[in-house]
């Protein structure tokens, strides 16, 4: 094949993106519109839930467009030295921090800082390790499911049920709980229904996590609630400066040498700045997706905050109760309702709700019984955000002719289930995933997210090493040619 022929093929590829299956994409959007109208016709207050659903749809469109996945970011870095996705992620962090600061300044922020302790880095480590084997992070698995990837659906299944089981598990796991956690949990005089001295996760939560402090940079500097605190402390110091440092490190480690050689220029401050910009803009779709995700994530928080003020509520559970849906509410009358982009907790609720319907009594723990509730999936607002991500990704995949039902091999299915289980366990120990424990925290001034990222990257590094060892062992046995 001649080079000329290949180069002429490039426009055909781009043209293909606009000649996708618009019919299938239109049907999905029409179904979401019809579903939204049906929900509003039942009760207009379901607009609160629909905000989650539609922002999920937008996230799905953007995630698929930029092939945005933190598992790819880690794998590409450590397996082949490509910083493309890590760069996109950092762009998203910078922009979300600015939109989040705007929301904080207007007083509509729904964010609460995460307690910082060893659990954050340990959770990140387990999550990152598992993520490499599934081939997708929490949000990446959702968008890949929207592309028709059945393996990613198995990952979601594993994340859901592993969390649902781990937060309610007792038995021999209780023997591993330090006595200090049990004593601390007992001293908190919790409702008897929760039996907090039984079940390791309850004791971990009430006896350890609740004794830790969560804070934002603005609060630490005495600037909480001010515009300067939002923009200078929570955005600039917590998110933008660390992101810029990481971008420079990525450039020096992975991009600079090839850039200077390719451009045939001598090292200088000017050439390095141009090289840094070339790295940031090297994958326009990833950079654009990162920018869009950052902006829309802030908008979602602002709109949800405004709706809470409009309905004079603190949590969606109050609205559900007012509409007559009290089943599945927690002891406090709440449900999981972060008001911003989140992935894993609503997936835990899906698994937990199914187990509950099968007769498992799993409302006697803090995670479901006191904090997040177990609402019917049809009333689970953040759950609809995850469904929206799947549907949004399906729309984009159809439009780009990239939707394809893809069945996993036995090996891929096992990796999806085992890796997804590790991700679920890591998410619960670390109190979130790559979105809830990292993306949403650092952008709102909570430095615990960088600790989670450090753990996740460390786990990802170990995962890549383990995965490569597996591939080499398998190739040596079968004599196949590995890449």
């Amino acid at each position, binding site marked *: *094949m001649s*080079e000329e022929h290949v*180069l002429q*093929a490039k426009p055909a590829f781009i043209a293909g993106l606009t000649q996708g299956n618009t019919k299938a994409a239109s049907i999905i959007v029409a179904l979401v519109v019809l579903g939204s109208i049906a929900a509003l016709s039942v009760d207009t207050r379901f607009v609160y839930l629909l905000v989650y659903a539609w922002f999920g749809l937008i996230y799905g469109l953007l995630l698929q467009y930029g092939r945005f996945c933190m598992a790819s970011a880690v794998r590409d870095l450590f397996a*082949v030295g*490509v910083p*493309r996705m890590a760069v996109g992620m950092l762009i998203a962090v910078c922009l979300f921090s600015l939109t989040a600061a705007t929301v904080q300044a207007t007083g509509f922020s729904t964010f609460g800082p995460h307690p910082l302790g060893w659990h954050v880095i340990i959770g990140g480590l387990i999550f990152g390790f598992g993520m490499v084997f599934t081939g997708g992070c929490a949000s990446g698995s959702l968008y890949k499911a929207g592309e028709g990837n059945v393996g990613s659906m198995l990952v979601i299944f594993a994340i859901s049920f592993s969390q649902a089981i781990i937060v309610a598990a007792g038995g021999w796991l209780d023997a591993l709980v330090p006595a200090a956690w049990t004593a601390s949990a007992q001293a908190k005089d919790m409702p008897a229904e929760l039996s907090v001295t039984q079940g390791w996760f309850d004791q971990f939560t009430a006896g350890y996590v609740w004794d830790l402090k969560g804070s934002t940079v603005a609060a630490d500097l005495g600037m909480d609630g001010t515009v300067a605190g939002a923009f200078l402390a929570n955005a600039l110091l917590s998110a933008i400066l660390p992101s810029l440092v990481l971008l420079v490190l990525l450039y020096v480690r992975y991009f600079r040498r*090839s850039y200077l050689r390719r451009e045939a220029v001598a090292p200088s401050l000017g050439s390095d700045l141009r090289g840094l910009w070339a790295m940031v803009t090297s994958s326009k779709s990833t950079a654009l997706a990162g920018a869009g995700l950052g902006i829309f994530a802030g908008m979602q928080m602002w709109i949800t905050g405004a709706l809470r003020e409009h309905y004079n509520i603190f949590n969606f559970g109050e609205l559900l109760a007012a509409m007559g849906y009290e089943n599945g509410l927690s002891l406090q009358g709440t449900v999981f309702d972060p008001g911003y982009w989140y992935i894993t907790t609503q997936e835990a609720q899906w698994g937990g709700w199914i187990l509950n319907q099968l007769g498992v009594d799993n409302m006697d723990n803090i995670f479901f019984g006191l904090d997040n509730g177990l609402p019917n999936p049809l009333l689970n607002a953040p759950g609809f955000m995850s469904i929206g991500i799947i549907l949004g990704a399906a729309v984009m995949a159809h439009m780009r002719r990239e939707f394809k039902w893809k069945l996993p091999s036995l090996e891929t299915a096992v990796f999806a289930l085992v890796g997804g289980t590790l991700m679920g366990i890591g998410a619960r120990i670390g109190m979130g995933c790559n979105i809830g424990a990292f993306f949403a925290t650092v952008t709102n001034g909570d430095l615990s997210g960088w600790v989670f990222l450090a753990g996740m990257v460390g786990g990802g590094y170990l995962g890549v090493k383990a995965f490569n060892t597996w591939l080499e062992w398998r190739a040596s046995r079968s004599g196949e040619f590995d*890449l």
Partner: protein
Amino acid sequence: MKVMDQLQEGQVIEVLSDNPATVETLPALMFVVCGTHLGTIKELDHWRVYLRKGLSTD
């Protein structure tokens, strides 16, 4: 990566993939290993990606 190591400077390799993320990563990979991404063709259910060892002389 191992295949690229076995190529002579200027030789072209065709990679077939049905993984969108891989298709997106390969051009970026060529940049950091000083190879050249010649083009990508979308087929019905997969992509053909053409990569050349060494920098473009265009």
